[in-house]
């Protein structure tokens, strides 16, 4: 009996093949098999005969929306920076999208990075992606040589061991707290739709940190980010980070120093997170790709919580309305605003 993911893989291949074969799309962004257990390669398929290499499994942790603007550009006829946009409709690109990735596509559309009409969303409901790090931590000191995936279990194999573990126990934190596994955009449905998950408090991890004292929070912050090597994998894996020149690369003025100074590293992460405020869909790509295992998602999650509580918005859920920080209301909260002499902050 094929597993759910095997069935989805089959369906993805069939749909991708059909889309490429009849010329609906010029490229399909998906995943192919990785060279190590628990890895996959993001892949752009441009020919229908190559669709056989597409796969779908529990290790698809990178957000494919990240590739979308560039692949869209690659299927356009080449033109110089000052040349006019070519006449007529441009070629389309199909992309696999789960709940959070599809919301990123919504954000990209809102920010005019992606032309919605040129995207065919292959919507697939996410069952939660497995954190490779969580699995490796469970098997610390032992080398994992193969991982076999079943619907609810993973079988981890090494040279001298074979163990079965529950899949959900090693699913990434962001997937475990996710309430919207089903894509908000679907042009071609892959598999069955998923219903909204109940989660009374998706921000539990954030709350735990908020409960700490100021000193404890500072201690947490400095220790959490102390192992950062400034490789910028978190930034580059993020579909929101498309600035041609990132603030860390600015030389005039130089906002953030570039070496492994604790302050510079901290500032980088604070600013990176802040730049995602109101736009982050908590896809967890940043955390998954970090080679040092830093949980930088806590910062964006905190911002997500604030955006939801203060402005009632979640990224990618209101395609018609502007992004939270590109609009305002006359009665916005004045928490940090000193209104008069001896002013007390609102809410204190």
């Amino acid at each position, binding site marked *: 009996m094929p597993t759910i993911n095997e069935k989805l893989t089959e369906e993805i291949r069939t749909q991708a093949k059909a889309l490429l074969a009849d010329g609906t799309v010029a490229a399909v962004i998906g995943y192919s098999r990785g060279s190590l257990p628990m890895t996959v390669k993001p892949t752009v398929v441009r020919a229908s005969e190559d669709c056989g290499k597409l796969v779908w499994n529990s290790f698809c942790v990178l957000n494919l929306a990240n590739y979308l603007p560039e692949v869209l550009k690659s299927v356009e006829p080449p033109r110089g920076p000052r040349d006019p946009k070519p006449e007529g409709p441009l070629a389309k690109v199909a992309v696999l999208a789960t709940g959070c990735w599809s919301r990123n596509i919504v954000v990209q559309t809102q920010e005019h990075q992606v032309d919605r009409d040129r995207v065919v969303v292959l919507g697939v409901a996410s069952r939660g992606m497995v954190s490779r790090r969580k699995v490796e931590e469970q098997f610390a000191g032992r080398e994992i040589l193969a991982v076999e995936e079943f619907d609810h279990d993973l079988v981890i194999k090494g040279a001298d061991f074979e163990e079965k573990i529950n899949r959900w126990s090693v699913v990434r934190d962001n997937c475990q707290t996710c309430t919207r596994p089903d894509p908000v955009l679907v042009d071609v449905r892959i598999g069955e739709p998923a219903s909204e998950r109940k989660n009374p408090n998706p921000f539990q991890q954030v709350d735990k940190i908020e409960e700490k004292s100021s000193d404890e929070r500072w201690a947490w912050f400095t220790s959490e980010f102390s192992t950062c*090597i400034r490789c910028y994998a978190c930034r580059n894996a993020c579909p929101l980070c498309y600035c041609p020149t990132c603030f860390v690369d600015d030389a005039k003025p130089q906002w953030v120093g570039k070496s492994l*100074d604790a302050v510079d590293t901290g500032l980088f992460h604070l600013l990176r997170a802040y730049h995602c405020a109101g736009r982050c869909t908590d896809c967890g790509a940043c955390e998954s790709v970090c*080679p040092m295992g830093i949980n930088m998602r806590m910062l964006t999650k905190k911002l997500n919580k604030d955006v939801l509580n203060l402005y009632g918005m979640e990224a990618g859920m209101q395609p018609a309305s502007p992004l939270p920080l590109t609009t305002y209301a006359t009665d916005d909260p004045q928490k940090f605003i000193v209104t008069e002499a001896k002013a007390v902050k609102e809410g204190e």
Partner: protein
Amino acid sequence: MKVFRLSQTELDNMVQGWSQNRRVYRPAAGRQQSTHADCAPGWERVAASTPLTLPPGPSKTSVKTFLFPQPETMQTYTLKSSDPDKGLMKEPQKATEKQIIVGLRPCDARSVKLNNLPFQEDPFYQVNLARTVMVGFTCSAMCATCFCDQMGGSPMGTEGLDIAISQVDGSFIAEVLTPVGEELTAEIRLTPAEDSEINALAERRKNSPQADFAKLDVLKGRDLNTLYKAALWQTLGESCINCGACTFNCPTCYCFDVQDEVVRGQGRRIRYWDSCMFPLYSLHTTGHNPRGQKMQRTRNRFMHKLKYFPERYGLFSCVGCGRCVKDCPVNIDIREVMSDLLAVE
């Protein structure tokens, strides 16, 4: 060459003994909660009562951080108008204190030698090299991501090490390879290894995977432009996200950038790791970027390791530690790149 046999306790005592009056570092055990001020991520100062056990494979981050620290202060200066030395660059006092690195693997030890080729004339690297003692652990087995044998190393290799420690059924055989290593072992009473143990180790070394250049050396003879124009770069560049995870964890990536930092009138010029994966790396002031596309940057990294570096220095700039294979967010596997390159017509 002196060879000793140590039990786990003796080994721990020896390392802790060194740490009494020297800086001794080891790969961090598990996920780090914090890093020492003098210590790079992935490594920790040896403290009393931490038994030295290493997981298989190389440490999380490479040993280059001790020889080519991130950042290294190149010059210091003041910008205060009252100071007659305003704007005068001064070289900082170079640290000469010995540092002992315990627990690096043969691949990392080889990387120090490889980096020494471009850094042959570099004052900072040479000072650090002179003050670093490397106490390495040979590998009993190769991990699935290891390929040191293909790159000219071997899991039981001792090249570049001062002391090589090999695990032999529950105890350890320490081979003292250099005068510095002898100095370190001279202060402790150690049991010399039996001849049979030395022979057994030699036998094991003989049977372990040996450096095999034959397959890859073919690349050296290939035409640079053919490889440069190969179609594989396009596919590879398309999935690469151009982060620096591979370059920063790579023991043999040695590019650096130079920056000035000024805080309240006091300044320093530092050098720190850079990555050819970043667009800024090659960007001209005019806005022109010779490697403006993702694909070009991905290509540059692999071409540098497998073609440009060998053309200059005769050896591949890779030791086969497999860190980039493990850490790449999009699973770009240098072993696959190498076999694809070999297949390029």
